[in-house]
C-alpha cells in the first residue's frame, strides 16, 4: 500500500474495492485470452501435428485414469443406493439411478476433475517453462504464432477429447454399477443393461457431453492462461501449475451448476 493510504473503515472499503477491481480485471484478461485463443483455434493456419500430439496427451493418455475413476464411481454409487436407498425400495431402480447419475453428472464432472489435475497442470507447467526459458519468444522470432502453435491445439484437443472420454466414462461407470448390483442383489447383468438402456433418454447422455465440452475448454483455457502468465522462474511455474489446477476445478463445478440449471429449464 502506498504512503498516505486511508486507514480504518475507509481503508477496509478501499481494500475491498481494490480486490473487486482486481477480480474484474482478471476476468477481463481471461476473457480476452479466451477470445484470442478461440479465434486462433477456429481459423487457419492450423498445426496438425501439434493438434494430434495434444489429442494423444490430453485424450488417449487420460483413458486409464478416467476409466478407473468411472468404474469406482459407478460401483460406489450402486453401493450407496443399496445401503442408503433401501429406506424407500430404491434398490429396485439401482440401474436407473446409476445410469442417470453417471450420464448426467458424475461422468462429466469426475472425468473433468481428473483432467484438471492431470492436464491443466501439465499444460501450465509446460507453457510456463517455455515462457521462462524464452522458448515462446524464440517461436515468435521464428515467424510462428505461439497462440496458434501452442494454445489453439491445446484448446481444440481438450474441448473435443473430454466429451469422448466422458462417453467412455459413462459406459464404464454403468459396468461398475452392474458389477455391484450383481454382487449385492444378484441382479442379472442382462436385466441391468436392459433396464439401463430402456430408461436412459438420449438427452441424459447428450447433456453430459455438452457439459464436458465446456469443461474441456475450461481445462485447456486455464492450463494455457496460467502457463502463459507464469512469472518469476521455476517458482512462478510451480504457482501457475497449482493455479491452473485449482481454478479449472472451481470453474468446472461452477459451470456444472450453471449448465445444469439451464438444462433443467429446457
Amino acid at each position: 500500500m502506498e504512503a498516505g493510504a486511508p486507514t480504518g473503515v475507509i481503508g477496509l472499503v478501499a481494500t475491498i474495492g481494490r480486490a473487486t477491481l482486481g477480480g474484474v480485471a482478471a476476468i477481463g484478461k481471461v476473457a480476452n485470452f479466451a477470445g484470442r485463443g478461440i479465434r486462433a483455434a477456429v481459423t487457419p493456419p492450423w498445426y496438425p501435428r501439434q493438434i494430434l500430439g495434444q489429442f494423444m496427451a490430453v485424450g488417449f493418455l487420460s483413458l486409464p485414469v478416467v476409466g478407473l475413476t468411472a468404474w469406482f464411481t459407478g460401483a460406489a454409487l450402486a453401493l450407496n443406493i443399496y445401503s442408503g436407498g433401501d429406506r424407500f425400495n430404491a434398490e429396485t431402480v439401482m440401474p436407473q439411478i446409476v445410469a442417470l447419475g453417471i450420464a448426467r453428472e458424475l461422468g462429466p464432472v469426475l472425468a473433468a476433475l481428473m483432467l484438471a489435475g492431470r492436464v491443466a497442470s501439465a499444460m501450465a507447467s509446460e507453457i510456463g517453462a517455455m515462457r521462462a526459458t524464452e522458448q515462446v519468444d524464440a517461436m515468435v522470432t521464428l515467424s510462428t504464432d505461439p497462440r496458434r502453435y501452442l494454445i489453439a491445439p491445446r484448446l481444440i484437443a481438450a474441448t473435443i477429447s473430454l466429451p469422448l472420454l466422458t462417453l467412455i466414462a459413462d459406459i464404464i461407470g454403468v459396468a461398475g454399477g452392474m458389477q455391484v448390483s450383481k454382487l449385492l442383489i444378484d441382479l442379472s447383468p442382462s436385466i441391468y443393461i436392459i433396464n439401463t438402456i430402456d430408461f436412459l433418454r438420449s438427452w441424459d447422455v447428450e447433456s453430459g457431453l455438452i457439459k464436458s465440452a465446456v469443461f474441456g475448454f475450461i481445462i485447456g483455457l486455464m492450463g494455457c492462461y496460467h502457463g502463459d502468465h507464469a512469472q518469476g522462474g521455476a517458482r512462478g511455474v510451480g504457482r501457475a501449475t497449482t493455479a491452473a489446477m485449482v481454478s479449472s476445478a472451481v470453474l468446472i463445478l461452477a459451470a456444472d451448476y450453471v449448465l445444469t440449471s439451464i438444462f433443467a429449464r429446457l
Partner: protein
Amino acid sequence: MTTEFYTIPGQDKIMRAHLGETLMGFVVLAFAGLFLAYALGVAGLGGAHGAYGLTARFGEAGGLQPGAKVTISGVKVGSVSAVTIDPKTFLAVIRVSMDQAVQVPSDSTAKITSDGLLGGSHIAIAPGGAADNLKPGGEISNTQGTVDLFGLIGQVMRPHDAAPAPTPSATPAAKTPAALPDMGGQ
C-alpha cells in the same frame, strides 16, 4: 510428470515414452468397446445373452415403475424396464426383461399386483397352457391392470357415490378377460 511428461515430440515418441499408459489406454478402450457391444447386443437382440424382452399393455399401470420385479409363482424372473404410454390407445405399455432360462407360454396372463398398501407394484405372470412359448420381443396379450385399492374401498364404504367415482381399476384392455380384478389373487 509435468514438463517432461507432457512434451509433444510427435505421437510415436509419446507412445514409446509412455508405453505402460499407452497399453492401459488400449485396455480401457477395449473394455469399454466390448461392454458397449455386449450391452447393445443384450438390448437389441433380446434373447441372445441371457435375457429377452416382452411387452404387455395395461389399462391402468398405477404404481408400477421401471425396475419393479416380474414374478412367476412369487419367484423373481425379470424386471420392468420401461413404462410408456401408447399415444393412440392410451394404454400403458410395459416393457419387461425376462430371464432367458424362463420361457413363458404364449397364452400366459400378466397381472399388476401391489406389494402392499404403501409399497410399490410388481408384475405377476400366470403361465398358460399353450404349447408354444412367447418369442423375444413378443407381447403378453392377457393382462390385468392395477387394482385401485382406495377407489374400491370408497365404493364399498359409500356405495351411493359409486356413479362418478373412478371405475375400479383396469379398464380392461382389449383382450383382458376378467372385467373385475381379483383382489385376493395374491
